[in-house]
């Protein structure tokens, strides 16, 4: 904490380490005692106040799963989670490289945060609508969305179901419970609350789950969402993925250094959980708890997923310009893929050879799907989307003034 004095001075928070520093996170005490107890999902909101400032963890670094949050998942389910994370990572790697080759304008990886999306999706029902950001592609992978269509969207080619209207990664997959991703940050939290209110109005037990990074919690929309979710006891999960970095701004810029992001929910009377976002089983457990609470009428939960963005914000970003190059490696919570792998090995359900084989298999699978996707063109090829589709879906029907502009555009050709 900063020194207090008798005079106010403008204070601007700075991250502990910058390029050239040797990052040392030994001051972050990784809790050894695994987390506060798991209350009944329909408990009073104030019973989760301590969960907002502590950290729910299930897996020890040796792979042991302990505590009452440990979810009852079969080995097959865990292996599926591991594979989904590895497939997500393989796809990210492939797409990043293809962006570097000019096949698409832009890409965003989710390395280090795969557990947040995959375990979260696994703990929801497939028809629960998620309102993701651009770093939850793992939801689609977990729900079995067609990877080729995801790739075609990024390539803006003839197979792009959005017909080139959106930049890469801003997917929309209604059939897979994946709401159209907005590039304006934070805006979708409150929309998810409205979606959940509609579910409740229709007497459905469907819920909505919304995501924001920690950076965009500073937007008003985040506060609207918490407020409305509280007022109307909306069946939603509000997720803050605290990956430490909002492009180049460390998390202390978004919210000061005094309190956790989960604690923001306490003042709104929401249930609040703070979870180790690199712990697949803990993310699953926290999500399952919040989903049950929402589905049974207990209202909304704010979950902070404490994790780390291992790569740049996007292909347009170079994180070595603002943080130490090796910071991702010394981050004390490890890697979500490695940790679930260690757990599966620990319980005798996995081994190094199978893991290596699966990594290769994911790579090959992604490479083959990518080849198929690129056959339909890329942003740099001649076979991308028809320009005239830009006039479609502005409105349900083409109004007169746009019809005139279609004609004007024809004259340009």
């Amino acid at each position, binding site marked *: 904490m900063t020194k207090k004095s008798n005079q106010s001075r403008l204070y601007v928070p700075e991250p502990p380490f910058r390029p050239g520093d040797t990052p040392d996170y030994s001051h972050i005490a990784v809790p050894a005692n695994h987390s506060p107890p798991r209350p009944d999902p329909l408990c009073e909101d104030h019973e989760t106040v301590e969960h907002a400032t502590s950290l729910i963890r299930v897996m020890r670094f040796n792979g042991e799963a302990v505590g009452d949050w440990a979810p009852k998942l079969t080995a097959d389910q865990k292996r599926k989670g591991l594979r989904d994370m590895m497939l997500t990572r393989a796809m990210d790697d492939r797409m990043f490289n293809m962006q570097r080759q000019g096949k698409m304008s832009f890409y965003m990886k989710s390395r280090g945060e795969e557990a947040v999306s995959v375990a979260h999706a696994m703990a929801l029902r497939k028809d629960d609508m998620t309102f993701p950001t651009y770093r939850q592609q793992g939801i689609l992978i977990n729900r079995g969305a067609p990877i080729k269509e995801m790739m075609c969207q990024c390539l803006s080619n003839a197979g792009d179901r959005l017909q080139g209207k959106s930049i890469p990664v801003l997917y929309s997959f209604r059939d897979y419970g994946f709401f159209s991703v907005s590039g304006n940050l934070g805006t979708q939290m*409150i929309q998810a609350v409205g979606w959940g209110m509609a579910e409740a109005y229709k007497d459905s037990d469907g819920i909505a789950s919304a995501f924001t990074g920690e950076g965009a919690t500073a937007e008003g929309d985040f506060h609207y969402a918490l407020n409305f979710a509280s007022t109307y006891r909306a069946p939603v999960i509000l997720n803050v993925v605290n990956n430490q970095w909002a492009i180049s701004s460390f998390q202390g810029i978004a919210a000061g250094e005094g309190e956790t992001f989960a604690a923001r929910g306490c003042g709104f009377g929401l249930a609040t959980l703070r979870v180790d976002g690199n712990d697949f089983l803990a993310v699953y457990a926290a999500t399952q708890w919040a989903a049950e609470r929402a589905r049974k009428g207990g209202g909304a939960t704010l979950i902070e997923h404490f994790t780390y963005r291992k790569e740049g914000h996007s292909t347009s970003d170079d994180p070595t310009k603002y943080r130490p190059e090796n910071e991702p490696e010394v981050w004390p919570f490890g890697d979500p893929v490695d940790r679930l792998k260690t757990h599966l090995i620990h319980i005798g359900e996995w081994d190094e050879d199978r893991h290596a084989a699966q990594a290769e298999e994911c790579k090959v699978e992604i490479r083959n799907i990518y080849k198929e996707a690129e056959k339909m063109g890329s942003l740099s090829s001649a076979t991308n989307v028809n320009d005239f589709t830009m006039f479609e879906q502005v409105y349900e029907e083409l109004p007169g003034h746009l019809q005139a502009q279609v004609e004007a555009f024809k004259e340009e050709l």
Partner: protein
Amino acid sequence: MGQATKRMNMIEAIRDALDVKMTEDSDVLVFGEDVGYFGGVFRATAGLQEKHGLHRCFDTPISEGGIVGIAIGMASNGLRPVAEIQFADYIYPGYDQIASEAARLRYRSNGEFSAPLTIRTPVGGGIYGGTTHSQSPEALFTHIAGLKTVIPSNPYDAKGMLITAIEDNDPVLFLEPKRLYNGPFYGDPHIPSVSWAKHELGDVPEGHYTVPFGSVRRITEGPDLTILAYGTMVWVAEAAAKEAGVQADILDLRALLPLDIEAIAESVKKTGRCLILHEATRTSGFGAELSAQVAEACFFSLEAPIVRVTGWDTPYPHAQEWAYFPGPKRVMNGIRKVMGQA
């Protein structure tokens, strides 16, 4: 048509439209600040909660961004939300949700999601509302692709257009000229107001009917000039033309977007003269768009430059309300100018 009618003021017509749609369609929900038990500060939703239930017509926090945000979520999930923003002056916290989200959702998802919501909000001055209860921000919304912006000038259109808005599959901003709630306003606050009960457009059909967007209403017909107006200014135009002794084609635009440019052009080609009125500030106002479109479509038929009569480029003042307001005198000056008499 034989449909029974009832005398209504504009508030009653709006309430009746909501009631008709809420009765027909359980997906229609109405919400906003003070709209529930109390029935809204202008009473537009009075009685709807009692009749249709707490969960169909309810109060919201004072949070326009939140109001529009939940409306988007509900609309994309199959409901037909009708959100009230208490005054258009308060709409700006919701602007991002309207401009970046509601208006673009269909486009960016290529039709997979859409936001068929209606936002009702009172606009315009004339009630001593000062800078924060008098604005006419329509031009900030007609600039947004994906949104429809409409503004009725009378009870008949208000009901029919509101039903159209609720049934529209795209987001609609429904602007209500608050000075017209109780009666047509001819621009002179010193003349006792008239009631819609004495006006033929206060004769409102019962039950369901629609007034489509994109067609103007001709208020008066005449060969001398075309006056383009909407909202409160429609009636100021009528009074000013009468006093100026001109026979004008007064067109009430009703929908600003989509705009009935065909009818506008046809009229201007006939009269050769065009006066454009609005209460909003002048620079980059919707009148600028109208002027450009008329010039593009009718330049060789024009016998005089197009003239705009608008509010001044100031915030809407309180004590000087009627000095700001483009009343009959300013409109008559405009008429003289466009007629080549000034």
